[in-house]
């Protein structure tokens, strides 16, 4: 059952250059994703592919010069700015990247308690700290006294006590050691197993594969493929899009062989398929128009040549 649907989302930023000259940078174009109850969707892509902007668009926290089009639906009804304000932090929770998102002047126990919407906040906070093996002394600490791993667990606790139905986790793992990563990932799996929908934003395919049910691959502001995790095996024969294949092959445990070039800048996107300039399979047809997202073998792909 889908809880959150994003259809044809586009985001552009208005910028001024040379005084009053106005330009629009399109950073996300015709993007589609769906979050389902009990499932984890991993959103994978290079930095600058629009992963975090998608999260911010869902929560309605984009800066004021952003122009959003397309439809975001939550529980079947359109997610308007008014609903976004009402739901964020309650039914839709964000697990942000770093300790910088904690209030530096507030004891972390109190911060977690403000997220409790029903019942006794103090006991809920103590219970969740105990689960995440945060000692009793931690609730009275300030963020600067926490290690990176403890801060991460505090942020997770905040999402956990909020009774959220949708959790969006933005790059929760880089730079942590494997033990802490495993713990964080297991927590997301548990959220999902309790009936929540989880969106895990990451550039790291490996950690995504450990816990996700489906992987959505982003390239230059759009989804190029949505695939079940089972497809990521062997030499990547089951993978649909050439960019996803390239990512899979570039992993150090696979071939460690990169494709040349880099993602196009939003100000100079190619007219046809966004991946066409770097694609081995590209033909004249690819340059004509951006390909539509289509269904293929229990997944989705935005490529006319994919089989």
């Amino acid at each position: 059952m889908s809880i959150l649907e994003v259809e044809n989302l586009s985001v552009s930023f208005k910028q001024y250059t040379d005084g009053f000259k106005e330009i629009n940078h399109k950073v996300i174009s015709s993007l589609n994703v769906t979050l389902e109850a009990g499932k984890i969707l991993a959103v994978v892509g290079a930095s600058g592919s629009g992963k975090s902007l998608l999260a911010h668009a869902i929560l309605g926290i984009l800066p004021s010069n952003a122009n959003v089009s397309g439809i975001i639906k939550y529980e079947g009804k359109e997610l308007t700015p008014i609903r976004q304000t009402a739901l964020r932090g309650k039914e839709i929770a964000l697990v942000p990247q770093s300790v910088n998102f904690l209030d530096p002047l507030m004891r972390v126990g109190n911060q977690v308690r403000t997220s409790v919407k029903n019942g006794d906040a103090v006991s809920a906070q103590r219970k969740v700290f105990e689960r995440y093996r945060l000692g009793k002394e931690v609730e009275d600490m300030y963020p600067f006294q926490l290690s990176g791993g403890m801060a991460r667990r505090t942020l997770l606790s905040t999402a956990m006590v909020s009774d959220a139905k949708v959790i969006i986790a933005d790059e929760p793992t880089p730079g942590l050691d494997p033990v802490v990563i495993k713990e964080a990932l297991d927590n997301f799996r548990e959220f999902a197993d309790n009936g929540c929908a989880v969106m895990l934003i990451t550039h790291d395919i490996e950690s995504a594969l450990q816990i996700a049910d489906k992987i959505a691959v982003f390239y230059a502001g759009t989804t190029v493929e949505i695939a079940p995790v089972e497809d990521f095996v062997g030499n990547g024969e089951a993978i649909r899009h050439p960019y996803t294949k390239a990512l899979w092959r570039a992993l150090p445990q696979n071939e460690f062989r990169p494709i040349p070039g880099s993602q196009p800048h939003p100000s100079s996107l190619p007219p046809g398929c966004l991946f066409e300039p770097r694609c081995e399979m590209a033909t004249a047809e690819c340059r004509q128009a951006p390909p539509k997202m289509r269904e293929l073998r229990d997944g989705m792909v935005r490529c006319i040549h994919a089989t």
Partner: protein
Amino acid sequence: MQLEAKDIGFRYGDGPWLFQGVNLTLEPGEIVGITGPSGRGKTTLCRILAGFEAPIEGAVHFNGAPLPNNGYHPVQMVLQHPEKAINPRWKMHKILNEGYQPDKELLDLLGIEREWLTRWPHELSGGELQRFCVARALGPNTRYLIADEMTTMLDANTQAQIWHAVIEIAKKREMGIIVVTHESNLMRRLCHRVIDFNK
């Protein structure tokens, strides 16, 4: 041109010893990995080897003599977050040419496009910025490169691109590399030997 850490120990202020009695010898052209949980002092050790920090005990020797205090430092370091390692108020060409003028060949090898040189740092992605940080660290007099989680924030393709370029240059120049990463697969792929910083 050996890089040698002899019995080094370090602590911040009067705090507990972060580590003591660390010995490490790196030969030219050698690629050595350092692994271990966060907070054990891996980055601090790197900073000592690169001359950003002086050890409390022991010494670091380069080519049999103490590390130089002036001139171009033979040990260069690349950090995890490129956006924190560059001047946000400089354009990319100024950042790139601060230490020396990298040649066209190096820029091509690292996939740095000419068009990026006239841009501001905030207009480029993390992967694009990190290519500049690597180019900047690979001056002609760099003998050892320390890569402290150099590609942790990057996607798999960019990671492979940057490492292929760095390894090729290291081979050509007989440059030694220290690789700090939590990713065991990357470690296995790159390093000749691995030091566990857990002890």
